[in-house]
């Protein structure tokens, strides 16, 4: 057997890795991630974001509900984070506590930490500096908070880093099919996690084109490499468009539907509260400040210096491509703010006249990996990394968080920003009085939390449970034992606002709960 092995040239991705430090990175990420998740669990922060429960519910509906199946993945949010949640939300306890999300995001967090290390090592070739980058990432409180939630940022960051790691390896060795295909594969996964991933793979495909233009072999090499990368990297986008067409009969449902980001931003525009729209300076500023707030001001400042150092370093190759790839989320968000496809409210920039001044700031965490890497890069040429200096910078940044000079802004948005889940008394009421039976509810309007109301997913009639949903809006008594409606939500409009159906409602149901916004009916 030894003879047999002697001729095998083992492919070792990890030849360059200092295993003890990798293990420390992993152990540290698992330890801090777990602590953070326990903290979030104890403080009820896991489901602080309104979106957090929605992510869990989407996954839960695939395996439990009146009409379970993959179609429940919907057509607006990309499906991969929900698919990753499915094995865990299958268990009611993990679904209701949100710990299913903590597990998925936590694993992604550990993977991200390791690949921050490895990626930095590709650039600096020093274990201590690579470890520093990982430490900066792992100790970032915004990241630590989001890794305890079911939000889709951490899965994206993990795939983003895996993709960039292999892409940089490819940049360094452009005849490696393995690196190109691996980058394409993780790009494919990123593109199925968040739309940021789409931008990432598109610019990388362009880089592949440009990179190969100088190669011997002419356009055939360019064409071949481009097709090899893009066929896989773009396949996620292709599938999503096909999926939208099959499920919703329109290929760009995710872009144009009433539930799309674009449609939602239109509402802000009508209220004249979309400040960055068609304003490139404000778009830049909004995302810059958001990224800075998520990274920590000291880290971010040093990272900018690190970036400048990287760009002026004559020994670095492929600086342009590496920088643009790492900063692709920045470019993506600036463009989408400019086009009105997304909105961020952050207190420093958002006018006080606005109803809400904290919204979607978590988008800034996408720059934490780049900030961690460039922060560490700044110290790469120090003959001996000054532990005291670097530690004091990190400690100082931590103190800013601890004493509130810097808020953990992504957590703050979930707790009191517009992203926070709305908690209504009706939930408490339902929790006490709900005694089983099907519940008709416009889940998209988030009238009340299914989890906090203690309603089983299989007892819910919502827009994704055709034909129960449509039939119940015309004959409310047909399936539902309970009807929950909120002013201006679909149930209200289709039942309460239509006199003939309202009459039917009162014939078969008693109104058992009334508040300014919400009415609850129970069948007689």
């Amino acid at each position, binding site marked *: 057997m030894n003879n047999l092995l002697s001729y095998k040239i*083992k*492919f070792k991705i990890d030849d360059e890795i200092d295993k003890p430090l990798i293990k420390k990175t992993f152990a540290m990420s698992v330890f801090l991630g777990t602590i953070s998740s326990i903290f979030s669990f104890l403080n009820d922060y896991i489901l602080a974001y309104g979106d957090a429960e929605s992510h869990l519910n989407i996954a839960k509906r695939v395996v439990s509900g009146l009409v379970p199946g993959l179609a429940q993945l919907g057509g607006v949010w990309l499906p991969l984070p929900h698919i990753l949640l499915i094995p865990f939300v299958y268990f009611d306890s993990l679904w209701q506590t949100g710990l299913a999300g903590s597990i998925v995001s936590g694993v992604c967090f550990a993977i991200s930490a390791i690949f921050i290390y490895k990626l930095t090592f590709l650039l600096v070739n020093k274990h201590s500096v690579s470890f520093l980058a990982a430490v900066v990432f792992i100790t970032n409180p915004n990241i630590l908070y989001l890794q305890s939630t079911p939000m889709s940022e951490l899965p994206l960051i993990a795939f983003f880093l895996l993709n960039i790691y292999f892409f940089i390896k490819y940049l360094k060795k452009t005849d490696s*099919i393995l690196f*190109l295909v691996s980058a394409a594969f993780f790009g494919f996964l990123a593109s199925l996690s968040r739309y940021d991933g789409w931008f990432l793979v598109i610019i990388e495909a362009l880089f592949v084109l440009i990179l190969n233009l100088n190669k011997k072999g002419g356009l055939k090499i360019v064409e071949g*490499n481009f097709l090899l990368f893009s*066929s896989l990297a773009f396949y996620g986008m292709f599938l999503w468009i096909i999926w939208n067409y099959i499920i919703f009969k329109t290929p760009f449902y995710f872009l144009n539907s009433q539930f799309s980001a674009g449609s939602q931003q239109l509402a802000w525009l009508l209220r004249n509260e979309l400040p960055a729209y068609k304003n490139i300076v404000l778009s830049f500023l909004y995302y810059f400040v958001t990224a800075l707030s998520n990274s920590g001001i000291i880290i971010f400042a040093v990272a900018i210096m690190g970036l400048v150092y990287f760009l002026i370093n004559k020994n670095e190759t492929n600086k342009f491509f590496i920088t643009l790839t790492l900063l692709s989320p920045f470019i993506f968000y600036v463009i989408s703010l400019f086009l009105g496809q997304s909105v961020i409210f952050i207190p420093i920039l958002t006018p006080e006249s606005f109803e809400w001044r904290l919204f979607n700031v978590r988008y800034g965490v996408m720059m934490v990996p780049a900030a961690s890497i460039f922060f560490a890069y700044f110290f790469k040429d120090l003959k001996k990394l000054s532990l005291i200096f670097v530690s004091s910078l990190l400690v100082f940044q931590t103190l800013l968080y601890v004493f509130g000079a810097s808020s953990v802004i992504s957590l703050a948005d979930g707790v009191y920003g517009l992203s926070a889940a709305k908690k209504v008394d009706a939930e408490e009421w339902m929790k006490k009085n709900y005694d089983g039976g099907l519940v008709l509810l416009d889940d998209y309007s988030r009238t009340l939390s299914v989890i906090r109301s203690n309603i089983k997913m299989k007892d819910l009639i919502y827009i994704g449970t055709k034909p129960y949903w449509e039939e119940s809006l015309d004959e409310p008594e047909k399936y539902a034992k309970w009807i929950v409606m909120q002013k201006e939500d679909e149930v209200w409009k289709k039942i309460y606002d239509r006199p003939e159906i309202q009459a039917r409602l009162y014939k078969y149901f008693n109104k058992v709960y009334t508040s300014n916004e919400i009415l609850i009916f129970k069948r007689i």
Partner: protein
Amino acid sequence: MKRKTFKLSGISGHNGISIIIPFNKKIAFFQYIKRISKILKQKKIKHEFLIIIENQDKFSIQKELPIKLIEEKNKTFSRYLSGINLSKYSMLALVDDELKYPPEILKEMVKKVSPLTDAVIISPKKIKKNLKFNFERFDVVLIKKERAQKIDQAYFESGQVLTSFIKNSAEFKVEFVETFLNSEKKQFSKLFYFFILSLKSKLTASGVTPFKNEIIKIKGEGFFYKGIEFISHTNLPLDENAFFNFSPQEKLLFFSLLILIFLGFLENWKYSLIVLIGVLTILYFSDLVFSLFLIIRAFVKNPEIRISDEEINKIDESKLPIYTIFCPLYKEWSVLSQFTKSIEKLDYPKEKLQVMLLLEENDKKTIEEANKLNLPSYFRILIVPDGVPKTKPKALNYGLKYAKGELAVIYDAEDIPQRDQLKKAFLAFKKIDKKIVCIQAKLNYYNPYQNLLTRLFAAEYSLWFDLILPGLQSIDAPIPLGGTSNHFRMNELKKLKGWDAFNVTEDCDLGIRLAKKGYKTAIMDSTTFEEANSRILNWYRQRSRWIKGYIQTYLVHMRKPHEFNLGKNINLIFFQLVVGGKVLSIFINPFMWLMTISYFLFKVTVGPIIESFYPPIVMYAGVVCLVFGNFLYLYSYMIGCAKRKYFELIKYVFLIPFYWFGMSLAGWKSLYEMITKPHFWAKTVHGFHLVKNQKEIISSLATNQKIDGEKVPIEALSG
């Protein structure tokens, strides 16, 4: 030695029975007459067989039986007359060549014979009208010779006419045998009994008579079957070759399975269909996972044997062994000169080369052209004697007898191996485990850009040889060898008994056989360039032969699945996936595609019906296969092309589904051929690329330059 004599008994008044029977090529013919003989011996009745044949040349006499052959070109019923006249006993048994009745019927008929009896025929009296068996026919008739000779020749028009005449003639004292016709129930039980007897006979009797040593010395190893001589030049046992498609056990299993499916559909067609679709989906899913696994392994393990130039330069040529090169040719004179040039270019001491051009005796043109070529002394032309089968493996077996090399390799006539391939193989064999007895060099094409077909073909080869085979090697799985550039340790090759002359993909078979014997195959990083099939019909013929060969290989090696244990237990599963699964998917694919297309085109009408056949889990597995499986298969061709640096071919991979469709069509042809002509070797015509640019290719061999701005891979020429 005391001669055994028979006492007359039960048939007094007669000195014995002459059984007159036309020869039938059925497998059980000799078993049939042996059983007649056995019955008559038990009854102590002297007997002889007068077998009417058409061509004595193709008939081997079973010496243990009292047989006389009567050559009769007349195919009508009157051929029995010759037998009647030549018979030596006073009682005749005229037996129909259809062998519809079991031999035991004769025992019943003999019982009816008395000195006064003129004839005994099978009685149709008690046949129920609703039974559709036609007993008003000639099947077996016992008749006195003297009476038979007096019957007007006109009554020998047909069996029915003769039977009817005997039965109705007042001059004949006729006895009837009412065997198994007494009651409907009994009739069925008898019929069933005879059916089982007949089936058993067919299942157990091979009807094959191996050559005796004297014949082997003259003609080589082989056997007689149905009077026909088959020469394979190997003593590979019958159950290890593809002469018979199915073994008796396989037949039984196959028919049982068919019956089971049929009964399932009768009982509950919908449920059965769901189960069937479920099973197929699981198989597809397994194949998908396995393919993905192989591709990853090929990348991560990178198991090909690599030999550096430095190692080659260090070789002491005086220590190189004799290397035998087999090159079987059939009607390929057009590429002969190209081949000889590429062999001359090989970097190996010529005095240590033994190049055998294996030509078929009836291929006069190639023999003539080869003789004209003024070949170097290390070339030897071997003429393979004409005979059945006429296949490449048979020629190779013939060549093996004359091989004197320590190592051996097979090249096809149109091959251009890399110059240093033999030295690389020599070093590789030196380095590796002795269990590795075969090293497969990679194959690819020197005309990949000739047309669309060659582009897709080259993409397929790149996937197979650059990803799948290295992947298989990395897990020590059985490797279906490619048709050429298999390098062997000669001793082990001889121990393996060479190639199966009846298998039309003898390479694949040998790869599996050696794995079963506990040997291994490795892949070497050296390429032999071949000519990609550039014409659709030619490709279609070649592909159907390959698929047929894969089916043969599957059936041969599933006869003794336990033998995979000699290698590794899991090899049996790998074999299912690599050989069985690939073949099965070729047949199933068209139905799956049709179902998918119908689903999306006619979703409103057909959609719900199709959905009803897919329980959720099967549906998800099916969707994964559809969405990711098809993409993975397609993308793996792209990776193969990129690995082979055929970047320009990558865009053509999007057309691969059409190529798959062509493979399925070829698959169905192969299935038809499996039944009609299993050993037929659909010869692939080579040399189409030479029509256009023969001069360029030949000259490039000398100069290592590109051809016509196109891409004959430079490494093909330089090694």
